[in-house]
């Protein structure tokens, strides 16, 4: 067990060194959310009305969840690159604990995600977002964000051991995550959508997770009068969705890694 931790930390340190060398790797979880915050706050903010508060306070929960959803990208392209370049074969000839390579990636991505959450909170504060709940709820909000990010990282790990090239991973993430994060209450309240779209968005896990974050931070939720079940119980739904992703992604990632590296 201690060797697993030690080996994972060596691998995690490697990934963090990569980020130091190629800071662009962090753009999707740092600069991109700042850009979204500014664009939505200043460009769309004026035309999107939230019945229970200000749009900027509404927006930040959405941007946070969207950024963390894109946390799939980091591990997916890093692992796909490693597998393609054969560096994993070298690791497998070393007396390291099986699985440490993957847990190392997850640890490094989590560290990057925590930085991203801090940057997001700061940029939120700058545009006028505030936490209106008490400390336990605020902490619960951050814990929920981290748990969701953890699930997304494992989803990305599974993707990374499945796809053949890092480009494929990137393309797939964009193709799935852009519609998924937009067809939700991420940036616009559900009341503004057509009935069909509103139904889809209500059951989109991203909507439940943003609603949970908004609720825990005491931000406006822009909730319609009679929302769907997941939006009535957003915290439970958010935990449920994240747990479901983990239950599926972790075993598949481990199995996929064994398969890719079996000779």
């Amino acid at each position, binding site marked *: 067990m201690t*060797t697993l931790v*030690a*080996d994972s930390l*060596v691998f995690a*340190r*490697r990934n963090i*060194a*990569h980020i130091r*060398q*190629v800071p662009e790797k962090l753009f999707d979880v740092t600069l991109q959310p700042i850009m979204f915050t500014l664009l939505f706050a200043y460009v769309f903010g004026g035309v999107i009305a939230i019945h229970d508060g200000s749009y900027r306070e509404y927006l930040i929960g959405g941007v946070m969840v969207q950024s963390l959803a894109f946390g799939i990208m980091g591990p997916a392209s890093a692992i796909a690159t490693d597998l393609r*370049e*054969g*560096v994993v*074969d*070298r*690791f*497998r*000839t*070393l*007396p*390291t604990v099986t699985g440490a390579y993957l847990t190392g990636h997850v640890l490094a991505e989590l560290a990057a995600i925590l930085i991203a959450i801090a940057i997001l909170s700061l940029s939120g504060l700058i545009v006028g977002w505030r936490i209106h709940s008490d400390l336990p709820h605020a902490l619960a909000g951050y814990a929920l964000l981290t748990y969701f990010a953890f699930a997304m990282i494992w989803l990305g790990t599974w993707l990374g051991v499945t796809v053949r090239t890092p480009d494929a991973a990137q393309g797939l993430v964009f193709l799935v995550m852009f519609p998924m994060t937009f067809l939700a209450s991420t940036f616009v309240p559900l009341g503004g959508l057509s009935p069909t779209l509103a139904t889809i968005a209500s059951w989109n896990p991203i909507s439940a997770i943003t609603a949970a974050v908004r609720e825990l931070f005491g931000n406006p939720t822009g909730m319609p009068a009679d929302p769907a079940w997941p939006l009535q119980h957003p915290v439970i739904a958010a935990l449920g969705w994240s747990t479901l992703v983990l239950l599926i992604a972790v075993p598949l990632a481990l199995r996929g890694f064994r398969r890719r*590296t*079996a*000779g």
Partner: protein
Amino acid sequence: MVYDNDVRGTNKLGVEAEGLGKRYGDLWALRDLDLAVPAGSVFGLLGHNGAGKTTALKILTTLATPTTGRASVAGHDVVTHGARVRACIGVAGQAATVDGLLTARANLVMVGRLYHLSPAAARARADELLAQLELADVATKLVKEFSGGMKRRLDLAASLVARPQVLFLDEPTTGLDPHSRNSLWDLLRAQVKAGTTLVLTTQYLEEADRLADHIAVLDHGVVAAQGSPAELKARFGGERIAITLMDAAAIPRAAAALSAFVDGVVVEYPEARQVVIPVRTGTRLVEVVRALDAAGLDAHDVHRREVTLDDVFLAITRRERAVKEAA
């Protein structure tokens, strides 16, 4: 047969294999490989691409599981005691498996840490190896900026980090310039002198000749010939004269005209309009040219060369292979 790995760990065999085979789908990449490499010796696996060299190495380094047979490295079974094997081997693959986004030094420190050296020991070992492999000047450079040869040297350094009992190198000098090749050979000799068992694959007979105590020639997954370099050369070696004719149709006439000089199996390469003749020692080039001239044959090129792996292969598998390749 049942072996006790711990008892075997005390004997003097570096690498052992019995009936080792690996099947991918319907294809046997390796069949019936028997090895007995004494500790502190050099064993060369020769063969073309796809001959099964890399497959054999993958099994011995625990990267692949054998379909048949068994193997042990430094006395540990590669299937049942993979972790023990990994703790006492060093591996450098065909592709330089170093991390481009780390510095040379960081790569070696990382590998040292993964061998569970202390941070200080890993750093000290990294610096020692960087100096030994003439990489000290570029220690803090990112590896992605390295030339192919520098990457290979760093890869080799990574395989030496834990002072392995058994070192496996897959085509270590492919793509290296002559100077780097010579210094790498020197380094490997020094390692072996210090007691390391070395198993290397190569496409170059010359390399195996310079380094190996024992050679196995693999062809389509099967050992086609085995022995010391001297034995193999005595069987298949000697000088060759390669004649490139103006017309492939003239090959049989050329072979007939030169029969007096032949010592071994003549190999024809119709697609290259070439015939390669193993000649008796002392044959002079001018005699060959005169004989061709006397037969009324014109040649585009006539030259003398040392025996190559190709020649050994073709000598082993006779003409069938040359015919098959031409088809």
